[in-house]
């Protein structure tokens, strides 16, 4: 019966639903195209990661005839990826932890306390986002050598913290400034000190924004290559991007192993994103809708 009813709508509403269908179809097509655009290269690297370099040379886009899963073992054990993975994890996890705590504390102070020079500090921090990080590379190298931090995971961690701190403070300050002052006053009346308020009110209320910065910083630093390649030289301290780089010789590039290395490197990012993507979107759109 309902189908019958739909089969005889007024001419106007028919045209309307046709337009809607067309618009929705167009949108769908755009989404599908974009998904293909970003997923296909990833899928291609995925297939290459289980093919040998000679197989890839023979047919670039072919489906793997045999799945060489042992390449992952080779990379992990023989090519020292276990070490690189561990290095990346230690450096990135500690840098992200420090940058989050430090950034949140700084952002809270800048957003909440009216001290002399507040905006100056903010301006200096913000202006450092504008400059390309490459311009400090050489002087940074000198400084690290001077302080015996060259070629160490600690040195790279410190550099990563300072690299990501401005953007983190900037993002969190904007969010924290929108937390109503009454909330702080209420907590004060409830007997809490400034630090307890930061810990028990600002951090949990600001969690969507904090999660966003955690994910952005993690992805950024996990894939970071430039500073790592300049500031690390020992095989023992290499991070994953440098490990992948090691498959590139002057005359020969082991495309198959590069793809395998990339798949190993990308897994944590995918996992993190899968778990936190909802929080990420929440954080990025927070405040947009009241």
């Amino acid at each position, binding site marked *: 019966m309902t189908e019958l009813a739909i089969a005889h709508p007024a001419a106007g509403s028919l045209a309307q639903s046709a337009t809607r269908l067309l618009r929705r179809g167009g949108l769908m097509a755009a989404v599908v195209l974009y998904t293909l655009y970003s997923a296909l290269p990833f899928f291609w690297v995925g297939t290459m990661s289980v093919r040998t370099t000679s197989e890839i040379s023979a047919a670039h886009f072919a489906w793997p005839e045999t799945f060489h899963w042992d390449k992952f073992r080779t990379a992990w054990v023989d090519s020292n990826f276990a070490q690189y993975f561990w290095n990346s994890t230690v450096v990135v996890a500690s840098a992200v932890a420090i940058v989050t705590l430090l950034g949140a504390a700084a952002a809270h102070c800048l957003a909440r306390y009216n001290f002399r020079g507040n905006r100056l500090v903010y301006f200096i921090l913000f202006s450092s986002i504008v400059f390309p990080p490459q311009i400090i590379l050489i002087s940074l190298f000198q400084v690290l050598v001077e302080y015996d931090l060259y070629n160490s995971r600690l040195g790279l961690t410190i550099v990563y913290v300072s690299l990501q701190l401005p953007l983190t403070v900037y993002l969190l300050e904007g969010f924290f400034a929108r937390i*109503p002052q*009454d*909330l702080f*006053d*209420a*907590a*004060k*009346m*409830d*007997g*809490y*000190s400034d630090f*307890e308020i930061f810990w028990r*009110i600002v951090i*949990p*209320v600001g*969690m969507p924004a904090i999660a966003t910065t955690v994910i952005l910083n993690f992805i950024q630093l996990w894939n970071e290559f430039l500073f790592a390649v300049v500031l690390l030289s020992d095989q023992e301290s290499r991070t994953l991007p440098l490990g992948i780089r090691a498959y590139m010789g002057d005359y020969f590039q082991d495309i198959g192993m590069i793809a395998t290395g990339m798949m190993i490197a990308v897994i944590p990012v995918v996992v993190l994103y899968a778990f936190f993507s909802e929080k990420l979107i929440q954080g990025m759109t927070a405040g947009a809708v009241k």
Partner: protein
Amino acid sequence: MAAVHLENIYKRYKGTPQPAVEDVSLAVQDGEFMVLLGPSGCGKSTTLRMIAGLESISDGRLAIDGRVVNDVPAKDRDIAMVFQSYALYPHMTVADNLAFGLRRRKVPSAEIDARVRSAADVLGLGALLARKPYALSGGQRQRVALGRAIVREPKAFLFDEPLSNLDAALRVRTRNELVRLHKQLGATMIYVTHDQVEAMTMGQRICVMNNGRVAQVGEPLEVYRRPADAFVARFLGNPPMNVLKAAVERRDGRPGARLGGGWLPLSRWDAAALPPADVLVGMRPEELQLQAPDAAGPVLRGAVVGVEPLGAETLLLVELDGGAGEVTARVHRDVRTRPGDRVGLGVPEAATYLFDAVTEKAIAAREVQP
């Protein structure tokens, strides 16, 4: 419970010459419900925040329970505050919101539970304890904010316009609940509002503030009947009191006030107390009596310029003859007048108020006004 004493309190902000709060002295008795009333920007919220310890005191003495607390931080004053925005912690459940202040004070957890339950019972929040604030209605949030103050069993409660975000019906109900709660707890409460109806109905005493200063302190009806100055007279009452400039003029040896074409006798005042030239005359809209334009006696005449039928009553806006100004009169709902009609407004002598034309201070009449 505690008395709160403010002595010559000042609040000055950097870069502004005029103090936000100026020479405020006020004694709130133990267990009293005191309302700070005034228009926005009059310094009432600042005064409340100074009592709370959320603003520093520039000058003067603040004592709670006999102890000077000027330099005691908010967290150590043992005072609870209910905010206009409710300020519920969004990441905590209702139960956690209620318990948050007690946990900080290291109250044993069994007692926290008991106090939370009892406050929830008093406020009808029992079924909502596991909910987060976003899942509550405005009225429920307001009650949680109230509950958060109650569980603390503080020395005094401070309210900063707690009802202004509620709709009209809920506001009336909550008003009554608050009065009941005050009776039940017997607690000292200081309540800030710009709503004179809240002040009149809730306060045991009200403190009217204007431009950072205390204009008048007293029981609601007393302040209504004997306003200390023209500001208080205009601020209390809806519609507000008509206050018009008049010239002091004797007729047949009797003192009176000339308002454009009209003349009102001022026999309740000593001739010596009357200023030589101008004076402000106040008349409450409900005390003006609608009469024919040619009626005899102390009558102001004019033309109706506006009619507002409110259902229970009708408000007439009348432009007085001789450019004396506009007055509002509250008349019976059945009165049929149209803009342009000429009317007379009888002014009973007992219903006139006089204020100094310069200082706007009330000029006291000889006998007690009704």
